[in-house]
């Protein structure tokens, strides 16, 4: 199981800013290690952000997103106390879901 994500959801005016930091190696499958062997691809493929159980953002990402990816999104119609859940799934079938409340 991967490390927990860090999620921050904050109201800025009428827009909720969601920032997520995922802990993931994001190997592209292109890199070679010190012995010259190719490091196999291991990266997040799909992710979703849900507000009170409703999907607001669904994303597909490739290995060309940086290691320990950081994403920022903006959602309208949220209010303090709402639940924001973020989940991801990688190409090895590993997944993780974490939750926070809007501040």
């Amino acid at each position, binding site marked *: 199981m991967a490390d927990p994500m860090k999620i921050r959801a904050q109201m800025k005016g009428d827009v909720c800013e969601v920032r997520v930091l995922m802990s993931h190696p994001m190997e592209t499958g292109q*890199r070679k290690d010190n012995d010259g062997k190719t490091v196999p691809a291991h990266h997040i493929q*799909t992710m979703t952000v849900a507000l009170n159980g409703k999907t*607001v*953002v669904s994303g597909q*990402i490739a290995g060309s997103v940086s290691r320990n990816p*950081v994403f920022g*999104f903006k959602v309208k119609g949220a209010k303090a106390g709402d639940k924001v859940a973020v989940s991801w799934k990688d190409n090895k079938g590993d997944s993780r879901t974490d939750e926070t409340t809007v501040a």
Partner: protein
Amino acid sequence: MDLLRRTVLKGAGASGVLAGLLAAGVLKPTLAYANDWNKAAFEAKDFDVALKAVGGDGAATNAALVMKAPEIAENGAVVPVDVTSNIPNTTSIAILTKKNPFPLSSQFEFANGAVGDVSVRLKVAETSAIVAIAKADGKVYSAQKEVKVTVGGCGG
């Protein structure tokens, strides 16, 4: 004029066009579901193929689609890119790096109040244009910015 020969030629021409379309990813053999990884698009090595796979060919530039990225990125492994679409009803944003081994880096779909605004950090292999494709009301818009990379972010 030999009629049979003409028909054969015509048939060959048509199938040639079809093969070309398939290769370009216009006719996708498999349906892309909303949250299934679009393998064909992500594994496309050619920028134009990847662009077509996300439906970004023939996109119009629009000043309301704004991309923020550093002009010079010292570290290609972490290049912050912000894409903000001020176009109403933006439903999706895709980000591609023209000269990366696999150009398509990410694609996001927005619903239920999410604004067409996304910030990511990308790996950029070499100095390249970064292209954002936004879809709104069935129309496609693009914005791009050149990012100079001094140390590449892919490979070694």
